[in-house]
């Protein structure tokens, strides 16, 4: 049996200090998986460092936001015929070896999306109190919508299969995708699965999360969730290959 085509994408914005280590780590651990760094118009040497470390680099000519950046990777992967895509953050917080856990879960469960969760077995939590409060709030909010509990709705360590790629390459939240895509998944009657993954503290740079961005995040995500709930139409999210390219 032919082995599945797997691509690793790393969305990055001004991560010159961490991106090289992340890319090298992926290349050493999974030498057969191509690594694409999607650079969201960084103002530092992120693209050059990533390329030097062995990644292919897609440079967005303007800043699109995390969702637009991730979707670029999904579009590329879908067009190049990849079966699975694993998204890893560029700040070095995700344990690269856990990519295997996500991939195995994607194959074994046939779920459209597998989320690497910090909280399934409480492994390697490095989360601030405000962020923990936010995560708990969204857990409670999403529970009745998804019909099942989700441990880590804000995780950026995510694997998707080709069915999800087909949908996400056409429609994807542009700003803060993690929580909204869960509602999109539910709307499309797709399944998601969580696996316990390790998380490291941020080693370099600093988080862009401030009080104002947190407030904006909450409002934006709540609106996104609400809009997606309004869009529930009961249709399954699989569309013909011929109709989905724009």
């Amino acid at each position, binding site marked *: 049996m032919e082995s599945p085509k797997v691509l690793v994408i790393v969305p990055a914005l001004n991560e010159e200090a961490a991106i090289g280590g992340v890319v090298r780590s992926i290349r050493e651990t999974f030498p057969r998986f191509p690594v694409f760094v999607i650079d969201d118009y960084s103002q530092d040497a992120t693209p050059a460092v990533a390329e030097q470390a062995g990644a292919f680099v897609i440079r967005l000519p303007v800043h699109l936001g995390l969702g637009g950046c991730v979707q*670029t990777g999904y579009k590329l992967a879908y067009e190049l015929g990849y079966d699975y895509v694993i998204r890893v953050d560029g700040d070095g917080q995700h344990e690269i070896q856990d990519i295997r856990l996500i991939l195995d879960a994607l194959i074994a469960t046939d779920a459209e999306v597998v989320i690497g969760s910090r909280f399934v077995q409480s492994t390697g939590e490095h989360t601030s109190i405000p962020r923990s409060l936010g995560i708990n709030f969204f857990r409670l909010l999403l529970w009745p919508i998804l019909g099942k509990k989700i441990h880590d709705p804000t995780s950026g360590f995510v694997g998707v299969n080709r069915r999800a790629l087909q949908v996400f390459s056409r429609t994807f939240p542009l700003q803060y995708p993690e929580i909204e895509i869960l509602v999109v998944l539910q709307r499309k009657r797709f399944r998601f699965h969580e696996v316990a993954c390790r998380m490291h503290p941020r080693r370099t740079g600093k988080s862009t999360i401030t009080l104002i961005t947190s407030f904006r995040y909450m409002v934006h995500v709540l609106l996104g969730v609400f809009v997606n709930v309004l869009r529930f139409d009961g249709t399954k999210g699989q569309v013909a290959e011929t109709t989905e390219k724009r």
Partner: protein
Amino acid sequence: MSIESLFLAAGVVTIVATLRSLRREHIRAEYSISWLAVGVILSLLALFADTISRAAHKVGLDPGICFAAVAALLVSGLVFEISHVVSRLRDENVILTQRLAILEHQVRKVDSRHGEKID
């Protein structure tokens, strides 16, 4: 200055400004229609102010408030349309930006392969 003259002046200024912008190609024809419509509506409100005032009295409304409500509705309609257009343009820009980035990557890949062959 009466409310009628204010509406008439606003209507005429809107129509003239829109036509000027159209002539100078500062605004595209498809986006000028709403502005022209607003100008015409404001002018009609001014020209038929008496009729509108009588109608407002009949339903127990103050004519001034009635005029203000219509003006607010027109502004809201325009702002809503502009939001709609901006959102569509934003979506199209995202698609174009992503396509450009992917194509640029593919061109660089082809270029580097071509370079390798020459070497």
